[in-house]
C-alpha cells in the first residue's frame, strides 16, 4: 500500500512538470510491451503534434489495479489513458468515459465478444487493444510416434496422454507427463476451469441474463470431475501450484505431451534454447464429450479513457489510433500480440510471423469472457471463490458436487438479489 502511494506521488510529480495540453498514457511495463507502446505513441505525436508521456506501471496486474484505483478513486486527472485487463471494465467502469460516441463506429471492426465484454450498462468503457485465448499446445512428434489423432474431446485427450505417457516412461523418460496446465489457486485457475465448464456446456459461473449463480449444475460437476481425474494420473500433482510459466517449463523441457497456455508461449517454445523447437503444434482446446463445444477463455488488454481527463476528445483519438489496424499490425508482427481486428488475421505479413493465427481464428473470435461485466466490482470475490472451490476439488479435499453446491450458496450470499442488480 505504502509503495503504491509512493508510486502515485512519483507519478504526480512527473505529471505536474508537463505541459497542460499534453496527454499521459499508462502502458504495460513488461519489456517489449512498453517499447512497442512508446514507438506507437511517438508516431501519433509526430502526426498530430500533441505531446504524450508514457507512464510505466507495476508488472503485477493485481498491484496495477490497486494503483489505478487509487488514482481514479481520488478523481485525479494525472493519467488520461489506462491500459486495463479484460476483467477490469466492470470494476473500473464508473471512472471511465463512454467511448461509443467518440469511436464513430470504429469498434465494429473489432471482435464482437471483446466489445461486448468492454460494454458496461450500455457504455463502451474501453477499446480492445490485443487479445488472448487459452490454447492447447501438443507435441507433433509424439502424437505421430504413437499414431494418435489430434484430440477432439477431453476424453480423447485423456486417453492419448495416458498412452503416450506410459509409452515414454517405459522407454526410459520417467519424468514424462501427459498434460500440464494452470492449477494454482489464482486467476489463471479461474480461466482454465471456465474452459472446462463451457466445454461441457456447464455455464459461465454466473448467468449473464439473470445475474444469478448458474454454477451448480450436473454438467459443471462433470467438468470438474474430469479435471480432478487428471491430477496424479496424466498431470503431476504439483500442478496445484503451477502458473503459466511452471507449466511452460515442464512442456518446453520436453516432459509433457499436451499443455494449456496463452499464445505468448508459442514464440518461446520456438526459440533456439527450447528442447521442443519445431515439434510443437497449437490447436483449440477440446470439447467436453462428443456433444460439448470448444471453449477458450478470453484474455487480453484494453485502452480506456479516464473520466477525469481534461481532454477526453484528444485522449479518445489517441486510443483509436493505438487500437487501430495500423498499430495492431505492427504489434502483431513485432511482438506477436494478437490483434482484436478480424481482418488482420488474413494479413500475409502477420500470418508469416505467427502461422497459427490463421488456423485458430475461430478460437480467438469465439473466446468466452469471464463473468466480469455482470459481477462488476465484485468480480475478484467471485473469481476467488470459484478458483478456491475448484482447487478443493482438484486437490481431493472435496467432491465436485458438494464443492459446487457450497460455492452456489456462498455466491448467493454475496449477492442475494443477483449480480448486476442493486447491491
Amino acid at each position, binding site marked *: 500500500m505504502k509503495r503504491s502511494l509512493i508510486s502515485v506521488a512519483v507519478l504526480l510529480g512527473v505529471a505536474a512538470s508537463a505541459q497542460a495540453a499534453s496527454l499521459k498514457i499508462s502502458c504495460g511495463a513488461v519489456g517489449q510491451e512498453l517499447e512497442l507502446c512508446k514507438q506507437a505513441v511517438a508516431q501519433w505525436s509526430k502526426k498530430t503534434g500533441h505531446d504524450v508521456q508514457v507512464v510505466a506501471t507495476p508488472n503485477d496486474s493485481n498491484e496495477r489495479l490497486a494503483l489505478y484505483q487509487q488514482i*481514479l*478513486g481520488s478523481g485525479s486527472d494525472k493519467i488520461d489513458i489506462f491500459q486495463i485487463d479484460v476483467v477490469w471494465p466492470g*470494476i473500473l467502469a*464508473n471512472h471511465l468515459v463512454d467511448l461509443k460516441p467518440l469511436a464513430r463506429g470504429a469498434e465494429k471492426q473489432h471482435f464482437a465478444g471483446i466489445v461486448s465484454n468492454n460494454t458496461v450498462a450500455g457504455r463502451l468503457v474501453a477499446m480492445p487493444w490485443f487479445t488472448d485465448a487459452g490454447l492447447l499446445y501438443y507435441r507433433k512428434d509424439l502424437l505421430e510416434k504413437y499414431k494418435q489423432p489430434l484430440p477432439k474431446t477431453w476424453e480423447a485427450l485423456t486417453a492419448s496422454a495416458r498412452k503416450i505417457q506410459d509409452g515414454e516412461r517405459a522407454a526410459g523418460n520417467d519424468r514424462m507427463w501427459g498434460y500440464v496446465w494452470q492449477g494454482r489457486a489464482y486467476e489463471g485457475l479461474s480461466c482454465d476451469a471456465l474452459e472446462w465448464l463451457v466445454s461441457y456446456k456447464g455455464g459461465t459461473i454466473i448467468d449473464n441474463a439473470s445475474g444469478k449463480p448458474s454454477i451448480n449444475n450436473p454438467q459443471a460437476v462433470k467438468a470438474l470431475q474430469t479435471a480432478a481425474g487428471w491430477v496424479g494420473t496424466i498431470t503431476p*500433482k504439483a500442478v496445484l*501450484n503451477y502458473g503459466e510459466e511452471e507449466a511452460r517449463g515442464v512442456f518446453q523441457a520436453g516432459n509433457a505431451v499436451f499443455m494449456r497456455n496463452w499464445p505468448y508461449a508459442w514464440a518461446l517454445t520456438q526459440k533456439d534454447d527450447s528442447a521442443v523447437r519445431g515439434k510443437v503444434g497449437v490447436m483449440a482446446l477440446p470439447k467436453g464429450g462428443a456433444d460439448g463445444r470448444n471453449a477458450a477463455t478470453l484474455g487480453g488488454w484494453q485502452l480506456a479513457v479516464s473520466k477525469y481527463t481534461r481532454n477526453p476528445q484528444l485522449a479518445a483519438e489517441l486510443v483509436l489510433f493505438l487500437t487501430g489496424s495500423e498499430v495492431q499490425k505492427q504489434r502483431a508482427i513485432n511482438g506477436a500480440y494478437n490483434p482484436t481486428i478480424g481482418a488482420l488475421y488474413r494479413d500475409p505479413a502477420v500470418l508469416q510471423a505467427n502461422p497459427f493465427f490463421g488456423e485458430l481464428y475461430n478460437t480467438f473470435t469465439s473466446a468466452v469472457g469471464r463473468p466480469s461485466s455482470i459481477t462488476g466490482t465484485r468480480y475478484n470475490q467471485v473469481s476467488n471463490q470459484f478458483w*478456491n472451490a475448484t482447487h478443493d476439488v482438484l486437490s481431493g479435499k472435496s467432491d465436485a458436487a458438494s464443492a459446487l453446491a457450497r460455492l452456489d450458496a456462498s455466491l448467493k450470499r454475496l449477492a442475494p438479489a443477483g449480480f448486476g442488480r442493486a447491491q
Partner: protein
Amino acid sequence: MSSETLAPPLCLPPRTVSSLQRSRQRMAWLLVAPSLLVLLAIAGLPLLRTFWMSLSDAQLADLSSRQFVGLANYIGDSGVLNDPEWWGAVRNTLWFALMSVGMETVLGLGIALMLNHPSRLKTLLRAAVLVPWAIPTVVSAKMWSWMLHDQFGVINAMLLALGLIGEPLAWTADPDLAFVTIVLVDVWKTTPFMALLILAALQMVPSDCYEAARVDGVPTWSVFLNLTLPLITPAVLVAMIFRTLDALRVFDLIYVMTSNSRTTKSMSVYVREQMIDFQLVGYGSAAATLLFLLIALITLCYMALARRRMEGH
C-alpha cells in the same frame, strides 16, 4: 503518572519529595516525550485510522463515499467473525506460530550450545549460521520454491537419489505437505536468530558456576538442566516472544510460496486479499484490527505467564 495526585511514592518517606524530585520527574517526561510523539504519529495514528475505517463500508475505488456501518464488519451476518475463511486463517496462523517457534527454539538452543563450545572454527561458524537470517524473506521463499519444485527441484532429486521417496513430491502444492513445508522454510530462516540470542545468553553465564559444578562432580546433563537452563530462560523467553510476534504476522513467505491457497492462508494474507484484491477497505480494516487485537492479547498472556514463571523461581 501519579504525579498529578501529589501522593508521594510509597517507597519514600514524604519529606524527601523535594522540588528536586519533581523536577527530575518532569525532566524524565520531557526526555521521553519526543519518542512518545514519534510513536504516536507512526503507530498510533494509522492504528486509529484503521479502526475508524473498519466501522465503515469503504471501498478502495472510492474511499470518500464511505458510510458509517457500526460494528457490521465485525459481527454482522457477513462480518469477519462470521466468515469461516477468517477462522481458517486464524487457525493456520496459530498453528504456524506454535510449530515454527517451537522448532526454532529447540534447534536454536542446540546450535547455540554447540557454538558455545570452545573451538577454533567458532567465529567462522557463527558467521555462517547467520546467512539464512541475512537473506530477505522474499528471496529465500522464491529460492526454496525452486529448490522444492516437483520437476526440476534439487530437494526431490536428492531424496530420489537416496531412495527415500519413490516419486517426486509436490511440496508446495500437495495440501498435506504445503503447510509443513512452509513451517520448515521458516525454521530454516529464523533458527539463526534464536541461536544467536541464546548464544549471547549462554556467554553471560558466569564461568565460576561451571567450575563449582565441576569440582562437585555434577553430571553434565544435570548441569545443563539445573544451572544453564534456569540462567538463560529469561533471554530465551524474550527471544520467543519476538519470534511469536513475527510468526503471527507472517505474510511474505506464505504469499510467495503458496499465493492465495486456503490451505496455508494466514491472517495477514487474508487482510491483504480483502483490502487489495476485493477492494473492501472497511471489511479488511476490521480484519486488520482483529489481527492486531489477537496479537496484543497473545502477547499480554504470554508476558503475564512468563513473569509469573520468573517470579516463581
